[in-house]
């Protein structure tokens, strides 16, 4: 891999309504400076893809957005959400995560029934009404395109689901919380092509009501589903633009090389 300059970047501002933005976000794992000055704006009701090679910092960046890095890294800079810096220590992280929810790389359903996987967090957040809970289970499963497959076995263990189903359950679990923003960390990387296709379909559906930020190493996936794409390289954001632009006419050499498969 050749050395690319980190000085030259091409990052656009989002003209339409913003879901959230970061300003000069930096991440340190001990002495290791893992993320440099990432300033990005995310559009509301759009899908934004974060692409880049392994270790480029895209997952690290994503995990900052709902403070999942709190315990393992030092995060500096601003994360603006609803005109507030949610990276401030005064912010209640648990509330943040209710609005900005995350789906992980490996499906991680709880060792509970399918129904309880969805209702568990809801009940903890004070939703006691049975019909309301039932309604949320159904709507979230439908939103995640899982309803038809599991509607008759809601009391079965979630551990018995296939990988793709489990991942969609994890998405449903997040959706049931009615968050603003969905963060997805390579949600399809551990899945087969058919499951991947289903997940992508699901995301297209969700896009109507949610702002989605998705990390992926699969460029086809990014080009298929994302409205905007950011390219990460060695802890820097080098390019951020509309997806067609990134894939047809990249402004930065590193992006071009990555997209054409020269490294990564």
């Amino acid at each position, binding site marked *: 891999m050749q050395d690319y300059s980190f000085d030259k970047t091409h990052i656009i501002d989002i003209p339409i309504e913003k879901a959230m933005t970061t300003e000069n976000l930096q991440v340190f794992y001990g002495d290791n400076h893992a993320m440099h000055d990432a300033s990005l704006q995310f559009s509301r009701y759009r899908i934004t893809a974060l692409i880049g090679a392994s270790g480029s910092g895209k997952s690290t960046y994503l995990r900052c957005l709902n403070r*999942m890095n709190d315990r393992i890294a030092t995060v500096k800079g601003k994360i603006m959400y609803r005109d507030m810096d949610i990276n401030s220590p005064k912010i209640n992280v648990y509330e943040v*995560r209710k609005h900005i929810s995350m789906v992980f790389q490996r499906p*991680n359903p*709880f060792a*509970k029934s399918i129904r*309880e996987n969805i209702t568990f967090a809801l009940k903890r957040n004070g939703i006691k009404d049975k019909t309301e809970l039932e309604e949320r289970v159904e709507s979230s499963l439908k939103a995640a395109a899982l309803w038809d497959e599991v509607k008759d076995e809601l009391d079965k263990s979630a551990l*018995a689901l296939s990988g793709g189903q489990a991942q969609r359950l994890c998405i449903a679990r997040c959706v049931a*919380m009615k968050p603003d923003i969905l963060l997805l960390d390579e949600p399809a990387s551990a899945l087969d092509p058919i499951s991947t296709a289903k997940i992508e379909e699901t995301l297209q559906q969700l896009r109507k009501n949610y702002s989605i930020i998705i990390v992926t190493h699969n460029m086809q996936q990014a080009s298929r589903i994302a409205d905007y794409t950011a390219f990460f390289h060695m802890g820097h954001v080098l390019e951020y633009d509309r997806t067609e632009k990134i894939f047809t006419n990249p402004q930065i050499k590193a992006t071009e090389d990555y997209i054409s498969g020269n490294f990564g």
Partner: protein
Amino acid sequence: MNSKTTNNIATGIIYVLVAAVVGILIFLLGYILITGLPHVSWHFLTSAAQSFRAGGGIRDQLFNSLYLLVLTLIISFPIALGSGIYLSEYAPNNWLTGLIRTAIEVLSSLPSVVIGLFGYLLFVIQFRMGFSILAGAIALTFFNLPLLTRSVEESLEDVSDLQREAGLSLGLSHWKTITGIVLPAAVPGILTGIILSAGRVFGEAAALIYTAGQSAPIVNYSNWNPMSTTSFLNPMRPAETLAVHIWKVNTEGVTPDALSISSGTSAVLIIVILLFNLSARLLGNWMYKKMTATK
């Protein structure tokens, strides 16, 4: 060919070793049950012990053992649970944590007689508890804590971090994630830990001689008031357990049937432990199924 032969020989040796261990257990159980069971009768289980006449039973000892076990678990389990959660979820990776872990290990390898005497001087004498089930239960807590804490910690650590992240990312508090998601998934492991530690509590004698005492005063099984001195539930009464009874009968027993009482008691002790293991295992499976709703 050569490596294949080695493979076969080695596998053979492993089979022999395993067979030997199983054989040892069968011998032990067989010996205890064959020498003991003929002396076990309904009368033996339901009558009080005799100081010098033949024909004494072990009713009180049997109850005391169970009661002591329950009390010990009531005291030690919550503490072990909290400590296990601390070590697995909150403990920073530094020298202090290392020190705490070492301290717990040291506690578990102390000879029981030392703990017994410590309990005797501190609880029986200093805190004026007298020889009592409670003092015994506290002394046994000393043994139980390290074992239980370790098993709670290990069971929690066995639960994948993905589960924690899932809980946190839904806006659940760290604590709720631990108690609501991680802990239920760790229940079978914790239960196994409880069984193992319960076995040790059940069989412990040296520490109890100085704390719970070695006499079984007459108690009234119809008196349900734990504050009354004659109640069987009173935690402040002295209580001899099965293991202590075996020890006492063998060392100082003057009853003519001391030998058969001790064999009979050993057999009962082993059977209770067997039953306990079995039921805890079933309970564990049942709970796991309930928790995970697997059918």
